[in-house]
């Protein structure tokens, strides 16, 4: 079959977007099927001294049961299907900001029961409280970058 250059080019831009879309779709279905989109269930996992619901641990086990061997097999390839190389995190040092950032995230997570994935998924409900949470989350990210730019500029 003859493929024109223009057709090849549009396939090259459309296909990675299709797979990113498909990945997002499966991702949110996983969050919903597992119940993790429900902050009450997440908080019940974090409430080890109350009526503990260990479901979240099984969600992580299920995810890791697929992703650990899956990543291993995929990373044996020279590169991904639709990009030149794998864009993997390159940092390996354990800086204070890693632990401090994770600690702050955990406090926010424990206060409302939302982490980024479930919060973005739950936006489809168009509920005011979820819109507020996501807006605050985006603001928190922007505030972080603003603070970082200022402290770097001072140096």
């Amino acid at each position, binding site marked *: 079959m003859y493929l024109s250059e223009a057709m090849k080019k549009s396939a090259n831009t459309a296909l990675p977007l299709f797979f990113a879309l498909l990945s997002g779709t499966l991702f949110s279905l996983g969050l919903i099927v597992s119940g993790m989109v429900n902050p009450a269930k997440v908080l019940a996992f974090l409430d080890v001294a109350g009526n503990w619901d260990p479901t979240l641990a099984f969600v992580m086990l299920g995810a890791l049961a697929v992703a650990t061997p899956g990543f291993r097999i995929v990373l044996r390839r020279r590169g991904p*299907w639709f990009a030149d190389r794998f864009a993997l995190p390159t940092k390996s040092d354990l800086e204070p900001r890693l632990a401090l950032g994770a600690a702050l995230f955990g406090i926010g997570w424990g206060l409302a029961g939302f982490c980024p994935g479930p919060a973005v998924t739950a936006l489809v409900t168009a509920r005011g409280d979820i819109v507020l949470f996501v*807006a605050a989350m985006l603001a928190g990210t922007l505030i972080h970058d603003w603070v970082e730019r200022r402290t770097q500029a001072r140096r």
Partner: protein
Amino acid sequence: MTPFTPVSGFLGGMLIGFAAVLLLLANGRIAGVSGIIGGLLTRIRGDVAWRAAFVVGVWLGALIYWIARGELFAVESVASWPVLLIAGLLVGFGTRMGGGCTSGHGVCGIARLSKRSIIATAVFMGSGIATVFVTRHVLV
């Protein structure tokens, strides 16, 4: 109190893991939601479209489930608006500072056996558990 649902939890987790493997295989990217969203805010040229497509996919999945089941999934939140505001700011700031959230560090990072992600996950689980302990058992 919510019921313990290990089977649907494990199966849903497998879907999340499969989604992460697919994104790495096709796009060479890590399926970390805070990172994907953060990149939409900074908007580096040529690095926006796949992120937007992933987010649209997330909403599409939610709509598919909603339509297929004929009812909306449960999202039970009792947090007041001031608490949601503070929690959101902390989640946005903290995930940016710590370089990831439950999906990026907790799933993808641990799957790669990254020491940073294992530590980050232990820390946010610990501080999350401590926070819930304080709000539910100390302050009440």
